[in-house]
């Protein structure tokens, strides 16, 4: 039973998601609880697997589908980093699934069942993408994630259709480019297994075709992770996504392709290859541009969700420059930032979803006096804002610290300047919100879903908000443990030299 835990991470949610419609037909809420239960089980399997990996001193766990050995069979590989990302994804997914319950409460069975089906499938796609060890399997999971993502974005209301359709067009270009890159690599090496491909690609590392494949991967994943000039789909998509799922979409959907890119560039090809080095330089430039322009654009927004979307462009830039440094600290900073940012962004989207649920308001200049109406949410926003800016002891400080260390060891002082400037810009646009929430006089808001009581929101929504709020601080306190016990165990070999 225990040795099948890696499989359960994807198998249970996919079964539950596919059965969800049927159970929803029988009883409206049965399907949603089935999906939530399966995500709990997936979370527990992910934790078990991660514990096992850590107990083994970071030795990756290989799971062979149907006991077909690689390179012929498809395998799941869980190393410390994909393990912690699987835990992260299932955890945020679990919180988001609970959080969505009040949003779909008044809808018919078709809406509830459809929503949770898509939600479950998106969890499956993301988990699969981080744990798979096969490049074509990764494409399939990428498409599972994207297709259910388009559906969830389209569920958000009238305007979301257009956002979802445009994301679909752009996202398909990304996926096709990835597939093309896989084709090149398959034609070169004759294998689809990641570990096998890494070995066999060694003799082709200076071929022009290899450079083309790397370019395809970088652009393909760049589109999916909303790297700066390819982020056009993202603000609309995050803005109009279904408010229940927006947190999960914004928190995890752009990080997973980032991790896939890390896998290709760091684990399979190695950063000491000239082509990959060049690709990382491009990533660095795009990351810097994304950080600056994303922060400036975020300043110009008055819609809370849109501001967060542009801030995501900037945060993806942090991850990109962390990778671009190509040394150990930069890498740790990038991975740590993936984890921290997933928490921060989910927390902020949970809060704005809650405000939207109760008051139907998303304009940041109409949030006055929110600290009295929704105390927990305001506290979470405070933690998340401090973490975004990078003030200790919140998690955001530590990922920025590692990025700074990386820039210092790599002698790339330009990145230090960019990080400082962008932190200041972050401070401007987040303190603007804190000022509105805590200092401005109370805005007159009409309650769409009136709620009395201390929490200010239904329990299913207040709980995820509180947990992510605590999580941000906890990630700060335990960041040393995360880095030394988990991330350092899974560092790619090239960085250890």
């Amino acid at each position, binding site marked *: 039973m225990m040795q099948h835990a890696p499989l359960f991470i994807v198998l249970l949610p996919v079964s539950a998601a596919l059965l969800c419609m049927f159970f929803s037909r029988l009883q409206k809420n049965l399907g949603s609880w089935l999906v939530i239960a399966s995500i709990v089980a997936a979370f527990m399997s992910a934790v078990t697997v991660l514990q096992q990996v850590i107990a083994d001193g970071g030795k990756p766990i290989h799971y062979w589908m149907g006991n077909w050995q690689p390179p012929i069979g498809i395998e799941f590989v869980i190393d410390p980093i994909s393990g912690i990302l699987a835990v992260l994804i299932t955890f945020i997914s679990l919180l988001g699934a609970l959080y969505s319950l009040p949003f779909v409460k008044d809808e018919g069975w078709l809406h509830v069942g459809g929503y949770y089906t898509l939600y479950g499938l998106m969890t499956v796609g993301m988990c699969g993408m981080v744990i798979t060890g096969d490049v*074509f399997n990764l*494409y399939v999971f990428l*498409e599972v994630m994207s297709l259910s993502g*388009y559906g969830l974005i389209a569920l958000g209301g009238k305007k979301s259709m*257009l956002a979802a359709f445009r994301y679909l067009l752009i996202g398909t*270009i990304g996926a096709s480019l990835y*597939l093309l890159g896989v084709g090149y690599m*398959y*034609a070169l090496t004759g294998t689809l297994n990641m570990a096998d491909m890494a070995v066999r690609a060694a003799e082709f590392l200076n071929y022009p075709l290899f450079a083309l494949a790397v370019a395809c991967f970088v652009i393909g994943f760049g589109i999916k992770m909303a790297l700066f000039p390819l982020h056009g789909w993202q603000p609309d998509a995050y803005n109009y996504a279904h408010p229940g799922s927006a947190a999960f979409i914004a928190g995890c959907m752009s990080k997973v392709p980032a991790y896939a890119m890390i896998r290709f560039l760091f684990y399979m090809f190695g950063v000491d290859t000239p082509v990959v080095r060049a690709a990382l330089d491009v990533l660095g430039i795009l990351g810097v541009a994304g950080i600056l322009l994303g922060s400036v654009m975020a300043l110009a927004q008055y819609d809370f969700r849109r501001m967060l979307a542009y801030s995501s462009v900037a945060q993806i830039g942090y991850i990109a420059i962390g990778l671009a440094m190509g040394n150990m600290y930069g890498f740790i900073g990038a991975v740590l930032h993936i984890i921290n940012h997933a928490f921060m962004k989910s927390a902020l989207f949970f809060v704005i979803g809650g405000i939207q649920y109760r008051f139907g308001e998303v304009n940041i200049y109409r949030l006055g006096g929110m600290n009295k109406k929704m105390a927990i949410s305001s506290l979470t926003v405070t933690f998340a804002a401090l973490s975004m800016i990078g003030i200790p002891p919140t998690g955001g400080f530590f990922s920025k610290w590692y990025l700074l260390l990386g820039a210092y060891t790599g002698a790339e002082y330009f990145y230090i300047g960019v990080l400082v400037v962008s932190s200041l810009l972050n401070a401007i646009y987040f303190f603007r919100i804190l000022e509105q929430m805590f200092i401005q006089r109370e805005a007159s808001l009409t309650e769409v879903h009136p709620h009395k009581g201390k929490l200010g929101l239904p329990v299913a929504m207040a709980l995820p908000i509180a947990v992510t709020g605590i999580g941000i601080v906890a990630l700060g306190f335990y960041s040393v443990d995360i880095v030394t016990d988990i991330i350092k165990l899974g560092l790619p070999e090239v960085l250890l030299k």
Partner: protein
Amino acid sequence: MEVLNEFLKTKGIYSLVMILFFLGIYGMVLAKNYMKKLMAMNVMQVAVIYFYLCFAQKDGGMIPVLDGITNNPNAYINPLPHGLMLTAIVVSLGTTGVALALLMRIKEIYGSVEEVEVLRRASK
């Protein structure tokens, strides 16, 4: 002439496939109608499928069915890309289905699938 022949023999089909791929992207960028954008997207996906099928091809190779007589793997064409592309075709079918469903809803909401018209009504 020699050069041209050599080029057509080795790279000709791949060049055509790449032209098809970028024609698809070109169409997605420039078409003013969402339906045409969707069709251009399909062209792009088909180009990727062609690409896989092209490099699976082998001169004088036969269909990859083990008949018990020819046990030499070199006599067969590579079946794996074809298998992969079955999956990719299913994925592209799914994408097209989702896109068509979204287009129907867009048409319901905005009364048009012309980009200019939809954007004008969306900004109101």
